């Protein structure tokens, strides 16, 4: 006989001899009522808030979470198949608060809202669990934002910079590139010492499969976890998913690491919470959302933080996404989340359909703390961009009426056109910060003025290739000396002028004057 077989028999024998019979007291309640994903349970006098409860249904165990503790009954959200739960069945308390598995093992996986793998790559071997609800770090432990998150998107890194530990809202209508910004940001975190968690709330599973494939292809799954509560999952899962994702992020935070977490999107999260609340018979308020819908999001986003060195120095950067209806940012949930976050990236349909992609509206988008975190070189070149963009928009509207413009106005218009041409960027093609510095430097110093507007994109690509090939000298000038000093500026100017000499589409210098 093989040793293996003996070993198995021995193991089972061991388990049987070690088995302790128990005689323990348990609190048991009974199901009074079951509705869509919600059960009303009597008894269970010692149940805790958000404690895991077990339904004994037809030999199967279904878990639920206590959400409403009332005088005689408990409102429970059911996590799993609620169709097999029947009136009168037994419900047991477990003494455990809802928790999710955390650890380095979750990287590269697709998990559901309870931390169970859904990617078919086997069970998770994590050793630790974190509660999904946790009070946010207090003021003593925090520090102001001082390191940048490079999104790789020129319009954002220059004008609406995001810092590590910041909460920056991405807001816009459907189908306008909100997720694209988030995914590009994840892709650009390669080698930036950042863990990423993408929480999909009520998204189509096909979309998630797409995103996973794209991230894998870009090598981004090496540092990314996807938490998925799909469109077909019950509202309870959608409600829990962002908190579960945040708990996973907090594990890395406690290790002193930087984490980027994306909640895609919180409108659906609010909708699922509204569904749960109405079924639990909590009083509806504005737009039928319950009274604590603000707290729902504020307690989640407050968990994003930058800890000071004494507490490990880690950070959680949150990029919540909100979908507006027909550009209405004054609806209930958008205004709530705008007021909670440290700024927003507003995506505009008009820009999107004009071909300005990503359709970032430079006027309505702000970042309240991010500019402290920008690297010096970028700060130097990007300082004037907001003004330049704002002036251009104003002039462009005005210039539509008259053709007879003075030289200064014409110059501003021409430069603005080139600026917005630079802001255009393909999806899945984030651009490193040093390259961004070069192109913005070229723009503000008038080096692009003799490039035709429709050739700016081509010029940019060529310039980057030339820069890649140019060797370390220029690269060091920009990367090492983060303050863009005279040497670096000269190196960039030379690089651009060198590249220009080989081009055949340049406008004649000062042709317009």
């Amino acid at each position, binding site marked *: 006989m093989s040793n293996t077989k003996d070993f198995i028999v021995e193991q089972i024998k061991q388990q049987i001899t070690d088995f302790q019979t128990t005689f323990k007291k348990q*609190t048991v309640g009974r199901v009074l009522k079951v509705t869509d994903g919600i059960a009303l349970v009597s008894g269970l006098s010692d149940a805790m808030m958000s404690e895991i409860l077990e339904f004994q249904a037809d030999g199967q165990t279904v878990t639920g979470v206590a959400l409403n503790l009332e005088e005689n009954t408990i409102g429970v959200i059911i996590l799993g198949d609620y169709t097999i739960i029947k009136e009168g069945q037994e419900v047991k308390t477990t003494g455990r608060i809802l928790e999710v598995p955390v650890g380095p093992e979750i990287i590269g996986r697709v998990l559901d809202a309870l931390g169970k793998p859904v990617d078919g790559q086997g069970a998770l071997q994590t050793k630790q669990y974190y509660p999904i609800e946790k009070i946010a770090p207090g003021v003593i432990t925090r520090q102001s934002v001082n390191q940048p998150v490079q999104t790789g998107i020129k319009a954002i890194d220059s004008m609406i910079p995001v810092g590590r530990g910041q909460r920056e809202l991405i807001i816009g209508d459907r189908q306008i590139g909100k997720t694209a910004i988030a995914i590009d940001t994840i892709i650009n975190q390669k080698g930036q010492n950042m863990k990423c968690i993408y929480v999909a709330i009520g998204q189509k599973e096909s979309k998630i499969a797409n995103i996973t494939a794209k991230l894998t292809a870009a090598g981004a799954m090496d540092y990314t976890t996807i938490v998925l509560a799909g469109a077909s999952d019950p509202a309870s899962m959608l409600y829990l998913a962002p908190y579960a994702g945040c708990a996973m992020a907090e594990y890395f935070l406690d290790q002193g690491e930087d984490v980027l977490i994306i909640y895609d999107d919180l409108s659906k999260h609010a909708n699922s919470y509204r569904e749960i609340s109405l079924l639990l018979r909590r009083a509806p308020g504005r737009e039928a959302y319950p009274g604590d819908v603000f707290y729902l999001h504020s307690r989640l986003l407050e968990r994003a933080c930058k800890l000071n060195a004494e507490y490990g120095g880690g950070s959680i950067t949150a990029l919540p996404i909100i979908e507006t209806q027909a550009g209405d940012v004054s609806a209930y949930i958008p205004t709530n989340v705008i007021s909670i976050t440290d700024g927003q990236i507003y995506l505009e349909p008009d820009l999107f359909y004009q071909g300005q992609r990503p359709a970032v509206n430079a006027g309505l988008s702000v970042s309240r703390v991010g500019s402290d975190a920008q690297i010096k070189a970028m700060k130097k070149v990007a300082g004037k961009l907001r003004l330049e963009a704002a002036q251009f928009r104003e002039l462009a509207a005005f210039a539509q009426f008259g053709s007879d413009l003075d030289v200064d106005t014409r110059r501003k218009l021409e430069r603005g056109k080139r600026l917005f041409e630079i802001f255009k960027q393909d999806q899945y093609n984030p651009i490193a910060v040093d390259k961004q510095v070069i192109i913005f430097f070229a723009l503000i110093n008038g080096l692009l003025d003799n490039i035709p507007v429709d050739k700016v994109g081509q010029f940019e690509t060529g310039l980057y290739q030339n820069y890649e090939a140019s060797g370390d000298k220029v690269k060091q000038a920009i990367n090492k000396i983060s303050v863009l000093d005279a040497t670096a500026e000269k190196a960039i100017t030379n690089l651009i002028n060198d590249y220009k000499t080989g081009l055949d589409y340049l406008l004649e210098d000062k042709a317009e004057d």
Partner: protein
Amino acid sequence: MKHSVKQYALALYEATVDKKQKAIPDLVKNFLNLLIKNNDLAKINEIIIIFTNIWQEANGQLSAQLITKQPVTAEVLKNITAYVKTQTDCQNIDWQQSTDPTILGGLLIKYRDQVIDGTIKSNLLRLKDKLVN
């Protein structure tokens, strides 16, 4: 103002607890009139159940269920009663005994919303769980 079933039961208990036997029928009659006036007569069944619980608790009584495979002897029941007394503050325990061959052995005690599960069946199920996982 709406009153809960528990409030009614507690009020009834407190109104009657120290009264003489003779006064009680009048009090109960008044209570029923109050229920009619408040349009809450439909709650009477629930009120009776909760009133019984309150009364039992106040008098150190407990009605408990005992489920075994075979009927237990008086000696065993005495031991079980002594054990349950240690778990609660109740002095008089009113047993409702029943037998259930599917539990295979051991015993199952139920009182209020507590269950003390010492059956062979549940222990075997637990062992099975442990061996499978």
